[in-house]
C-alpha cells in the first residue's frame, strides 16, 4: 500500500479546515445576526454543496476552473495558476464543498447564545470584535470543535468533487478515497481494504477525541 494518498488526503483536509476556520467563522457570525432577504439567499447558496450531488458540484467547478472559462483564463494569465488537475484546485473545491459543514454548526451556536451576552459587553464599552473574541467565541467552543472535525472528516472522505476536479494524478491529486476506488477498479481488494481501514481508524480516533474534549461541555455553557 502506498502512503502518499493518505498523506495527500490528510494534507488536503488540514489545509481546507484551516482556510474554512479563517473564512467560515466570520461568515457564520454575519449570518447569525439580523436576518434579511439577502442573507437568506446567501445562506441558501452557501448550503447548496450540502444538498447538491458532488458530481454536479464537481462538474460546474471543472467548467469554471477550466482555462477556457473566464475565471480559469484569468487565474492562468495573472497568477500562472491552473486549478484543474492540481492540488490547489482540490483545495479550492474542498473549501467550497465543505463550507456548510463549518458554517452551519457555528452559525447555529452563535444564534442560540442569549442576545444579552453581547449586549452586556457592548454596554461595557467593548467593540463588536472584542465581544466576538472574548465573549461569543469562547462560549461556542464545543460547536467550533464539532464544525472543525466535521469539516476535516468530510474533506477526508470526499470523492465525487475530487475526482471531477483532480482526476487521479499520482502524488498530486490521487487522495485516499480515489485510491480505494482505483484499487477496487483494478481488482486489488486487499489494497482497497488497507486504505479503507486507515481512513476508518483516522476518522474514528478524531471523533473519539472530540467526544472526550466535549464531554464537559455537553451540558451547554449556560446550564
Amino acid at each position, binding site marked *: 500500500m502506498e502512503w502518499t494518498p493518505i498523506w495527500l488526503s490528510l494534507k488536503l483536509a488540514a489545509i481546507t479546515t484551516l482556510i474554512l476556520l479563517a473564512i467560515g467563522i466570520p461568515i457564520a457570525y454575519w449570518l447569525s445576526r439580523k436576518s434579511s432577504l439577502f442573507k437568506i439567499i446567501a445562506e441558501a447558496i452557501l448550503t447548496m454543496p450540502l444538498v447538491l450531488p458532488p458530481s454536479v458540484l464537481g462538474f460546474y467547478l471543472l467548467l469554471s476552473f477550466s482555462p477556457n472559462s473566464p475565471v480559469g483564463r484569468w487565474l492562468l494569465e495573472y497568477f500562472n495558476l491552473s486549478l484543474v488537475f492540481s492540488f490547489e484546485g482540490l483545495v479550492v473545491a474542498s473549501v467550497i464543498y465543505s463550507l456548510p459543514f463549518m458554517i452551519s454548526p457555528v452559525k447555529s451556536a452563535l444564534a442560540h447564545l*442569549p442576545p*444579552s*451576552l453581547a*449586549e*452586556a*459587553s*457592548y*454596554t*461595557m*464599552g*467593548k*467593540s463588536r470584535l472584542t465581544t466576538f473574541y*472574548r*465573549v461569543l467565541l*469562547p*462560549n461556542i*467552543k464545543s460547536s467550533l470543535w464539532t464544525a472543525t472535525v466535521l469539516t476535516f472528516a468530510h474533506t477526508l472522505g470526499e470523492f465525487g468533487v475530487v475526482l471531477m476536479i483532480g482526476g487521479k494524478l499520482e502524488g498530486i491529486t490521487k487522495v485516499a478515497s480515489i485510491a480505494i476506488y482505483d484499487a477496487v477498479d483494478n481488482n486489488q481488494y486487499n489494497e482497497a481494504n488497507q486504505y479503507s481501514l486507515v481512513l476508518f481508524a483516522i476518522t474514528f480516533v478524531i471523533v473519539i477525541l472530540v467526544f472526550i474534549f466535549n464531554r464537559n461541555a455537553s*451540558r451547554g*455553557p*449556560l*446550564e
Partner: protein
Amino acid sequence: MITVKIDKKIKTYKGNSRLIVNAVFPVGTVTKVYGPSGAGKTTFLKIIAGLVTPEEGMIKAGEEFWLDTTTKINWKPQQRKVGFVFQDFALFPNMTVVEHLRYATDDEVLISRLLQIGQMATFSSHRPRFLSGGQQQRLAILRALALKPALLLMDEAFSALDDELRESLITEIKILLIEFGTTTIIVSHHAQETATFADRELKIDLE
C-alpha cells in the same frame, strides 16, 4: 441630569401599542420604574442604553445628546457606557467572577472592594454555572458598578436576593453610587425590593 423623551412602537398580545415616556432624572437620584407586565419597562432601559432605537426620541445626559432622532444623533452603546444589570444577569459563562470584573475595569483596588461588598471574594475563581442564583445576580450588579457608570440601569436587579442580603447590599451600593455620582434607574415589580433604595418613582404604561 438625564432627560428622556421617547416614542416607540411596541407589539403586545393586544396588538400594536406605543411606549411614550417623558422624564427627567436628576444626577445622583435613584428612580424606581414600575408598571404592568409587558408595559415596556425593559425596552425603556434598553433604549436609554442604546440597545434599542425608538422611532422618535431624545436622550440628553448632561450636555451631551445620546439620541436625537430629529438630527439623527444616535450614540452606540459603547459610547454611552451605562452600567446595565440585565434581568437574566447576562453573565459570561467562560469567565470567572474576577474575570467578569477585570473585563469591566483594570482597577484592582476597586475589584477587591466590589468583591468584598458583594460577599463574593471566596468565589472569585468560580464560573457562573457554579454560583447560586443570588450570587449570579450579585455578580451582575458588581460588574455594572465596576464601570463607575454615570448612569446605572437595573432590571429587576434584586429579585434573587433574600431580604437580609438585599438590604446590606443596598446600603453598600448606595455608598458607591454617591461616591461615583451615579444616577440610577431601577425597574422593579416589588415595592418592598426598592423601598430603601429608590427615592423617586416613574410609572410606565403603554398607550
